[in-house]
């Protein structure tokens, strides 16, 4: 079976989308730059030209409007933000316009727009180049939010996002870019709104997404050595949330740890905890719901501080073990 890196899987998805659907347009800062979006857009401009692969000036809000307008006029727009932090500059167009358009005009128009944002944490990039903003976008009605954890899902979810017909925020984490996995050739879709159980277990469910999945898998290995059977649930889509999968897993294990790569307050982990707490299942839990996420503080630059800012496998494993002892 053929293996690709995550970045290659994205590159292949973009190439296939541009090749098979002439409505597809890729626009965003750095799509022709050798470093901004990793190697994910390599070779695309040479192949498809600067009318379909557009490297615009730094005008995030304006260019987001441009992508929306093109989508309204028949494009399937893929809009990239090489640092997700820059999406704040485009909040008006994303939240007021793209997200509302379909409902606000009575369903007359769709906005087929994939907004691809990249989390660039680590590497001493500090508070404005590291943020994981999934909760902010998931809060907004009219936006779907997907966060793949591997190249297979990234390719399939990117294709699903572009074909969705309405705005999808596609978030990936730069730390995933060099990870390899089996990726089929050709076009295929991973459904939006469906999570996956990556590892079955019976003692505790760990619900997670994106890069954090890999830290959780390592923590699960460590726990197995100590006789703890961990079920790992990869959300793949943040919104619409696969509540059924989460509840099914938690019902089985009776314990849950939610590990999110964003901030804790009012965030994804809180939403998942609430979904569990809103059901009778809450009375059957063997331990309180446990959340692990970033501290409610801006990302630091120094590696020494980054090491304690991001939850790593050791911290996740220790949290699981404490929960089991409780």
């Amino acid at each position: 079976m053929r293996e690709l890196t995550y970045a290659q899987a994205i590159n292949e998805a973009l190439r296939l989308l541009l090749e098979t659907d002439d409505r597809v347009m890729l626009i965003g800062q750095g799509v022709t730059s050798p470093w901004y979006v990793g190697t994910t857009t390599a070779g695309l401009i040479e192949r498809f030209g600067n009318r379909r692969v557009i490297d615009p000036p730094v005008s995030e809000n304006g260019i987001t409007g441009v992508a929306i307008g093109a989508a309204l006029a028949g494009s399937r727009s893929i809009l990239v933000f090489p640092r997700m932090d820059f999406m704040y500059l485009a909040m008006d167009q994303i939240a007021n316009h793209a997200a509302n358009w379909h409902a606000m005009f009575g369903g007359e128009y769709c906005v087929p727009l994939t907004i691809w944002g990249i989390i660039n944490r680590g590497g001493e990039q500090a508070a404005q180049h590291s943020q994981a903003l999934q909760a902010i976008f998931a809060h907004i009605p009219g936006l779907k939010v997907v966060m793949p954890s591997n190249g297979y899902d990234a390719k399939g979810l990117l294709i699903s996002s572009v074909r969705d017909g309405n705005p999808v925020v596609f978030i990936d984490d730069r730390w995933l870019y060099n990870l390899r996995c089996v990726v089929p050739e050709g076009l295929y879709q991973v459904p939006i709104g469906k999570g996956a159980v990556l590892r079955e277990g019976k003692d505790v469910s760990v619900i997670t997404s994106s890069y954090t999945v890999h830290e959780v898998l390592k923590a699960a290995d460590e726990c197995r050595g100590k006789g703890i059977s961990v079920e790992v649930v990869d959300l793949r889509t943040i919104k619409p949330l696969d509540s059924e999968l989460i509840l099914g897993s938690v019902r089985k294990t009776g314990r849950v740890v939610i590990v999110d790569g964003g901030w804790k307050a009012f965030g994804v982990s809180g939403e998942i905890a609430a979904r569990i707490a809103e059901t009778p299942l809450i009375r059957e839990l063997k331990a309180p719901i446990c959340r692990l996420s970033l501290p409610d503080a801006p990302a630091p630059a120094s590696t020494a501080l980054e090491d304690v800012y991001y939850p790593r496998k050791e911290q996740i494993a220790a949290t699981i073990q404490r929960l089991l002892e409780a």
Partner: protein
Amino acid sequence: MQRIRLFEERVADLVSKGEITTPCHLYTGQEAVATGICASLRNDDYVFSTHRSHGHYIAKGGDLRKLMAEIYCKSTGCSKGRGGSMHITSAEKGLPGSSAIVAGTIPIAVGAALRLSAVGGDGVSVAFFGDGAVCEGAFYEALNFASLKKLPVIFVCENNLFSTHMPVEDSLANPIIYKIAEAFKLPSCRIDGNDVLKVYKTGQAAIERARKRKGPSFIECMTYRWRGHVGPNYDVDKGIRTQKELDRWMAKDPIKALEKMLIAKRFLTNGEASKIVTGIEREIDGAVAFAKKSPYPPSDEMEIIRYLFR
């Protein structure tokens, strides 16, 4: 023009009576701008509008019944009662929408032009906006990108001298707006926006230029809204403007000016002019009746919307 005027004045009356409750930003006084520009547009050209949307919709050929029903927030409205006065649309007439965020649709109009330029053909896109939008960042980003990529878009600034309550000279360091556009290497001009023939000729030239893929243009139309920023009031009592200023602009009524000219040149008689008014009034009566008897959106529709946006 007359259709827009009589429609807006009817809406003003219905708002005063409490029949209409959605916030209405009336276009009375500015009719020559939308009319003059849209006269050169086809159904497959795009127009993007603002919170002051009714005039653009009517000028683009939109259905008065669907517009009135939307203003009544009924299910038969052009946006099915989900948009109200500020969010109107007509897929068949090429009006993908209007935004209540100042300058919001300017970059979107540029994006539609980007798509039009990619697919070939000679379609164009028009962004209508007010002087207030010139204070927004989106305006500058959109102008720069359109000029950089030579897109088939026409920027039509309706300078009605006020952004909500604020006079233009209190909001812009340089209130000569077309000069700002010139800095982006756009062919730009300032014209009398109450002279419908002038607007038509200027618009036609800009639209032709865009159809020939020679790039975008910028037209600043000097005009004045008779009514206040929102609702049927004149805002003279609030001290925002003087009765003298309002009277001066009402004397420059674009409809009366055209009517006078047409009658003088014997293209129109007084009798024909009043016949046009009667015909439109009847059409508006029909639109109001249609809106009033139309049902509100069914409440179970909220469930469907919630499901769609889960």
